[in-house]
C-alpha cells in the first residue's frame, strides 16, 4: 500500500500532510483497519474503471460499422466476420439467430456466414455476443448487421404472352429444321425477355424457301426496330416479300444464262465474268430489295401509318449448288450479319457490311428510301463462289450482341470457333444443338439453346444455320 497513493488521495481533497505530522501519518498508515479501507478504495476504483472500460468497449462495438457483402437469391454466399480485422479479440462468444430462414448458416468458430440465400430483402441480422469480463449469466449483447439479399435477376423477368387477338400478332417463338436443296436449314426465332416482360410482340422474323426447278434457295432474316410500333409486321413482310419475290422471279428469269455465267466464271472460260456477275448481283438483289421496300410502303399507305412504323432491317441470301461448288449472293441493310464458314471452319467470310449505330451514323432499315439512292448502296451486296462450306449463318443482333459483342469480332475466326463450340454445348447451360445433326428435335434444341442468359442482352433472338 503506497504512502504516495494515500497522500495523492488526500491531496485531491486539499488535505496536505504537514511535515510536523509525518510521524502521525506513518502510524495512520500502519493501522490495519486503515489499510483495509485503503485496499477497498483501490479495489472499488479498479472495479469502477473496469465497468467503465467494459461499457465503453461495448458502445464501441455497437457503433462500429460492420458491413458484410450483399447476397443474391440462389447464388452461393460466403462472408466472414474476421474478428482479428474487426479488433474483436475480446469477443468471447457469438451467435446469429434465425439465419436459417434466409437459407444461411453462421459458424461461430470461424465467423463464416454461408449458404444459398432463398429470400430477397433488406434485413438486419441480430448478432449476439459476449465480451471478456462480462457477466456470463446476463443476457448476451446484440448488434444489428445489415444484410441485403438481392432477388435473383432471372426471377424478376415476367413471361407475359403476347395478345393473340392483335391483327399483327405473331408467335412468340418459332423453330424449324428442314431440308434445303442438298443442305439443311435449322432456324429459331424467339421473343426477347424485354418483350416477354411486358407482353409485347416478337419483332424479329425469318423466311426461307428452296425453289425448283431453278435450284436456288432463298433465305431472309429481319429485325423490326424496337421503337417502331408495327415493326413486327414490317419484319414479317420483308422476309415473306423476299421469298415471294424470288419465287416469281425464277419462274421467268433466264436461269440457263445465269448458270452459264457462273460455270464460265468457275472454269475461267468466259469474258469479263466478274464484271457480269457484279452486275447480275447488283441488279437482281437490288431490285428484290427495292420491291420489298415498295411493298412495305404500299402496306403503310393502306394501313394509313407512316412507313417509319414498319422500320426493319433485312438480310437475305441466294444460294445454289453447282457441280463446281456453291454460289452465294447476299444483300444486307441494318446490323444483322451473314457469316460463311469454310469447309474445315478455318476461315470466316462476313458477307455483308453492317450498319452499326455509333460509327455509321445510326442503323439503316429497308423501310428507308434514302438507302437506295445513297452512294453506299453498292456496298450492300456480297458474292462468293466456294467449292463447299461448313455453315452459312444469318442472325439478328439479339444473337450477335451477346455472342460477338462488337462488329470487329465477326471477322475473327477464333470468336466464331468459340461460337460453334457454344452451339455444340460448351456453355453454362450445357445446351447443345449440336451442329450438323438434323433430327426432328434439332429445331427445339436450337430454341432451347437460344434461352442462354446474358446480362443486359434481352432482345429478340433469331439464328438461321445452313449446314
Amino acid at each position, binding site marked *: 500500500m503506497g504512502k504516495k497513493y494515500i497522500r495523492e488521495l488526500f491531496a485531491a481533497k486539499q488535505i496536505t500532510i504537514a511535515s510536523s505530522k509525518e510521524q502521525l501519518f506513518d502510524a495512520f498508515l500502519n493501522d490495519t483497519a486503515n489499510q483495509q479501507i485503503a485496499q477497498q478504495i483501490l479495489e472499488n476504483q479498479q472495479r469502477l474503471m473496469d465497468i467503465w472500460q467494459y461499457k465503453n468497449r461495448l458502445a464501441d462495438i455497437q457503433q462500429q*460499422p460492420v*458491413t458484410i*457483402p*450483399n447476397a*443474391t437469391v440462389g447464388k452461393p454466399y460466403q462472408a466472414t466476420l474476421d474478428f482479428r480485422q474487426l479488433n474483436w479479440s475480446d469477443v468471447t462468444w457469438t451467435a446469429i439467430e434465425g439465419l436459417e430462414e434466409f437459407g444461411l448458416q453462421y459458424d461461430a468458430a470461424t465467423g463464416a456466414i454461408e449458404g444459398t440465400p432463398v429470400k*430477397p430483402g*433488406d434485413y438486419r441480422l441480430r448478432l449476439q455476443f459476449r465480451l471478456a469480463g462480462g457477466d456470463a449469466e446476463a443476457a448476451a449483447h446484440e448488434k444489428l448487421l*445489415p444484410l*441485403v439479399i*438481392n*432477388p435473383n*435477376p432471372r426471377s*424478376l*423477368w415476367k413471361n407475359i404472352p403476347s395478345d393473340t387477338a392483335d391483327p399483327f400478332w405473331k408467335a412468340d417463338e418459332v423453330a424449324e429444321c428442314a431440308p434445303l436443296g442438298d443442305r439443311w436449314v435449322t432456324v429459331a426465332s424467339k421473343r426477347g*425477355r*424485354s*418483350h416477354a*416482360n411486358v407482353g409485347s410482340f416478337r419483332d424479329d422474323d425469318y423466311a426461307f424457301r428452296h425453289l425448283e426447278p431453278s435450284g436456288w434457295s432463298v433465305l431472309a432474316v429481319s429485325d423490326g*426496330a*424496337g*421503337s417502331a410500333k408495327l415493326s413486327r409486321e414490317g419484319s414479317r413482310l420483308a422476309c415473306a416479300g423476299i421469298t415471294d419475290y424470288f419465287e416469281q422471279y425464277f419462274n421467268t428469269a433466264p436461269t440457263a444464262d445465269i448458270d452459264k455465267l457462273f460455270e464460265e466464271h468457275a472454269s475461267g472460260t468466259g469474258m469479263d465474268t466478274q464484271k457480269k456477275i457484279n452486275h447480275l448481283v447488283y441488279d437482281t438483289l437490288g431490285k428484290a430489295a427495292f420491291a420489298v421496300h415498295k411493298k412495305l410502303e404500299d402496306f403503310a399507305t393502306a394501313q394509313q401509318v407512316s412507313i417509319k412504323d414498319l422500320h426493319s432491317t433485312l438480310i437475305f441470301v441466294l444460294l445454289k449448288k453447282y457441280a463446281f461448288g456453291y454460289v452465294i449472293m447476299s444483300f444486307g441493310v441494318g446490323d444483322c450479319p451473314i457469316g460463311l464458314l469454310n469447309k474445315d471452319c478455318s476461315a470466316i467470310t462476313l458477307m455483308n457490311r453492317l450498319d452499326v*449505330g*455509333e*460509327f455509321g451514323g445510326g442503323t439503316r432499315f429497308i423501310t428507308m428510301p434514302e438507302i437506295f439512292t445513297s452512294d453506299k448502296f453498292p456496298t450492300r451486296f456480297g458474292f462468293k463462289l466456294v467449292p463447299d462450306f461448313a455453315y452459312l449463318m444469318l442472325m439478328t443482333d439479339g444473337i450477335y*450482341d451477346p455472342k460477338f*459483342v*462488337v*462488329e*470487329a469480332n465477326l471477322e475473327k475466326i477464333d470468336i466464331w470457333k468459340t461460337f460453334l463450340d457454344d452451339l455444340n454445348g460448351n456453355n453454362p447451360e450445357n445446351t447443345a444443338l449440336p451442329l450438323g445433326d438434323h433430327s426432328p428435335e434439332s429445331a427445339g434444341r436450337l430454341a432451347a439453346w437460344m434461352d442462354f442468359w*446474358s*446480362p*443486359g*442482352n*434481352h*432482345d429478340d433472338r433469331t439464328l438461321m444455320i445452313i449446314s
Partner: protein
Amino acid sequence: MRRLPVYLLLDTSGSMSGEPIEAVKNGVQIMISSLRQNPQAIETAFISIITFDSSARQAIPLTDLASFQMPDIRATGTTALGEALQLVSQCIDREVAKTTTEQKGDWKPLVFIMTDGVPTDSWQNGLTAFKQRKTAYTVACAAGHAADTAVLKQITENVVSLDTADSATISRFFAWVTASIGVTSTRVEDSGKEVTGLHELPPPPAELNIVV
C-alpha cells in the same frame, strides 16, 4: 455488358443537417431497394455517390446495384459545388468505358445533382470541365428556396425545384429519380437508344417544379 452509369451529386453542407440529410439518405436507400426489383435496372444500372460540402469526395465509386451499400453521410461545412463538378468529370473519364471497335462501351451516364444552397467555391472551372463530358442527361434539383436555380440552369437545362427541403418532398424527388433510372435502363436494353432529356422521363410529381 454495357453499363448505365448513374452519378448522384449530393449536397452535404451544414445547412442540410437534420431532416434534409436524413431524408436524402433514406431516399437513396429506398431508390436502391426499388431499383433492385427492376430486372433491367439490376443488370445495367451502376450507381456512384459524390458528396460535396467544404470539399467534394466520391463516397461510393460506380457500383452495381446488387453490391451497392449505403455510405454514412453527414452534413457539415460549406457548398463546394464546383469541386463536385470537377470530380464527377474525372470520375466519368476514369469509370465510364468508351466504345471502340474492340469493345462496346457503357451507355452515357445520367447525372443527378441535389443542392439546397449556393456554391461557395469558384465553380466556373468545374462547370467548364463538366460541360465537356457527355451525359445522356443531367438533372439538377434545387431543394428549398435558398438554392440558386440560376446557377443550376447553367449546369443543365433540366432543373427542378422543391419548395421545401423536408423529408416528404425529398422522398418524392428520389421516387422520381428512381422512375427515371428505371425508364432509362429499360429503354437502353430494349431499343438500344439513350434517353436524351427531361421530356422522355416520367412526369415529375406535383412537388417538383420544373424551372424554365
